[in-house]
């Protein structure tokens, strides 16, 4: 019936043996047994398999407005989320107030602002959404021991084990939805015996609650394919064949379906209907290490304290080693009998677990630490544990002395320097495309990931000075001529006119010259064109 109307791709006409199609109503009674776990074998089965009884119950929470709701400080006014598409910022999602003013997804940011000047535009951030979802997942861990982040906007909970504790499915569902709603998240809930089934039902927007696998099959058959999160091109192709619901899909022969749309889609259908197991990874809140060391009497001896810290670091190392994790930050607290605890924070460029590494950093900082009085207890709290990224080293056959002498990498050196002199005092540099001399470069933290300068290597006609003063220094004048160290300057080169930056507050209009004083010092000086009588020193040709 459907098949006759369907436009078939050329060359596949013979691949559709009509007799292979089994009417859907006969499928449950089909004698062919389901072979759980043997998906490859099951493709060649002629009919769709029989449903197995439900043992698990999945709650799916779909958060359709997550991009909007993950923004923490919503000003109260109308707001829209924008994202860059092909160089243009377009509205991805707008809240109710903005929608009332006619703002829709797909509009450019400028068009939206023209419609509603008070509109608050926020850049979409996938990271922010992920973090929000993780926060929600840790909140939902109270309802089930099995919480899973299934997609970028879908949370799944296994409920079969929690029903008795929370007094039934109805109450549990209300409680979960209510707890998320209180935090300001709009949720589309659905309950089904399979995780994918629950997800599809939630995405369809119907608040279904299905406990029996048989009912699930019946309900899913009626479900439109639009709620399946399949790519639009695939949906269009299926719609062209007259297939618009899950039930229509199930009417197609399995082997032909795999050939046309891939085994992945058939696997999804089988899993949603509960014919094949659908294993999921449980989400766990990241772990932290925390340990205390209490002493029977106050201790002021710093070497004893350092030893205690080493013990704590070693037990942290064991904790991290067992989990193959590392930490980037940690905090020691030294408690006194009176007064607030003294804190010492350490941080590194990347996750580390070795006690020796942290002890090395601690040694640098501990020297400078002022302890107001004797210490009665020490606490070590680690930051969030992260998967450890280990670095591969060169296989060194020759044993060249140069390779051996490399004691630590630049990040390790930077970590040590930062621990002693502070993060602001250690930096790398990169160039910025700007003609204004003081904006042509930027300090860059060495501990962050960075790829160095990406500017093309252009050749300037005019030499720049190697030394730059932090602020231009005004030069004294002698009857209109600039003086340096009490002597008149001789101009060697110039002027180079830099007149730019009018678009922001810090526009300049200057004539730069290279000058030399009688002592042979070469200077980079400029005259402000707005006030032609004042001269400034901006750098030295070191």
């Amino acid at each position, binding site marked *: 019936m459907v098949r006759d109307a369907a436009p078939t791709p050329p060359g596949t006409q013979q691949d559709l043996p009509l007799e292979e199609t089994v009417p859907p109503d006969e499928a449950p009674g089909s004698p062919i047994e389901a072979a759980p776990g043997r998906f490859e074998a099951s493709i060649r089965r002629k009919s769709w398999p029989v449903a197995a009884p439900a043992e698990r119950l999945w709650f799916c929470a779909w958060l359709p407005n997550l991009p909007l709701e993950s923004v923490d400080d919503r000003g109260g006014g109308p707001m829209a989320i924008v994202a860059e598409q092909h160089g243009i910022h377009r509205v991805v999602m707008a809240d109710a107030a903005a929608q009332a003013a006619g703002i829709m997804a797909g509009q450019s940011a400028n068009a939206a602002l023209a419609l509603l000047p008070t509109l608050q535009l926020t850049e979409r951030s996938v990271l922010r959404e992920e973090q929000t979802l993780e926060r929600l997942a840790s909140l939902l861990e109270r309802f089930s021991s099995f919480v899973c982040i299934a997609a970028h906007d879908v949370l799944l909970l296994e409920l079969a084990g929690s029903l008795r504790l929370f007094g039934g499915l109805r109450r549990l569902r209300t409680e979960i939805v209510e707890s998320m709603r209180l935090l300001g998240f709009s949720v589309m809930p659905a309950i089904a015996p399979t995780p994918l089934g629950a997800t599809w039902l939630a995405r369809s927007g119907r608040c279904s609650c299905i406990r029996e696998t048989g009912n699930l099959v019946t309900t899913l058959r009626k479900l439109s394919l639009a709620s399946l999160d399949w790519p639009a091109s695939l949906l269009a192709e299926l719609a062209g064949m007259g297939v618009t619901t899950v039930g229509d899909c199930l009417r197609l022969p399995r082997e032909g379906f795999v050939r046309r749309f891939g085994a992945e889609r058939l696997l999804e259908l089988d899993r949603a209907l509960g014919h094949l197991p659908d294993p999921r990874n449980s989400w766990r809140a990241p772990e932290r290490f925390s340990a205390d060391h209490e002493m029977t009497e106050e201790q002021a001896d710093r070497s004893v304290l350092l030893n205690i810290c080493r013990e704590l670091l070693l037990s942290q190392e064991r904790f991290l080693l067992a989990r193959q994790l590392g930490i980037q930050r940690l905090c020691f607290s030294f408690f006194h009998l009176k007064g607030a605890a003294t804190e010492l924070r350490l941080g590194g460029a990347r996750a580390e677990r070795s006690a020796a590494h942290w002890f090395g950093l601690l040694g640098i900082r501990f020297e400078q630490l002022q302890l107001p009085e004797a210490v009665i207890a020490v606490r070590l709290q680690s930051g969030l544990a992260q998967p450890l990224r280990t670095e591969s080293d060169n296989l060194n056959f020759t044993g060249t002395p140069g390779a051996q002498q490399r004691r630590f990498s630049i990040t390790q050196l930077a970590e040590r*320097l930062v621990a002693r*002199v502070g993060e602001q005092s250690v930096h790398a*540099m990169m160039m910025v495309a700007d003609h204004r001399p003081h904006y042509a470069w930027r300090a860059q933290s060495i501990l962050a990931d960075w790829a160095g300068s990406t500017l093309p290597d252009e050749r300037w006609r005019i030499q720049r000075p190697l030394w*730059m003063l932090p602020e231009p220094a005004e030069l004294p004048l002698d009857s209109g001529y600039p003086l340096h160290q009490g002597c008149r300057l001789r101009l060697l080169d110039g002027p180079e006119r830099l007149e730019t930056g009018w678009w922001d507050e810090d526009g300049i209009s200057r004539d730069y010259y290279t000058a*030399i004083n009688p002592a042979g010092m070469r200077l980079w000086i400029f005259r402000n064109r707005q006030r032609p009588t004042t001269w400034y020193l901006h750098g030295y040709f070191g």
Partner: protein
Amino acid sequence: MSASLDKLLENPRVWRGRNAIQQKTGLASGYPELDRHLPGGGWPQQALIEILTEQYGIGELRLLMPALARLCAEDPQSEQAEPGWIAWIAPPFQPYPPALRQCGIDLSRMLIVRPKDAGDVLWSTEQALSSGTCAAVLFWPEKLDDQASRRLQLAAEKGSSWAVAFRPLAARQQPSAAALRLELHGTGEGTRVHVIKSRGGHPAVLNNLL
């Protein structure tokens, strides 16, 4: 000649008269006239050198730039996996990246450290030198006594790095373990470089080098 005798003769402290074989052990400075006056035909490597000057803008950095550019450039011949970094510790002004780039320096290998007190300057310098990561460490110490200079000289040898101290002219009177000490004087015609100490070499005066 036996290998150990060869090694002994290679030592720049052994004076072999006028027809000594010039060993190219130094790092070419990029100024041939200066190279001629330096033992080993260039800057002494894995050593501490001192540049004494009180003026800025007389070429005190330009003197080092060709050697620094070579140190931080990728060298396919070298056994080192990657070129070294150049650390600037307590520079008096901001080293200006566009100018460094004009001198052929790889900007992604610059590390600027500005410690708050004099002790930290020496500590940071020693760390950078002995790390084995920095090919060169330029530093501006407030004071550098004989003992500290000896320590830094050892750190430079340990990390096979090159230490360059910038000090005022008054430091000329103080003893130092540096392998090379230069005085720079700006004159109207050009900069005069005065080699006042050179391990294995001779004092010399070079006019209008820069």
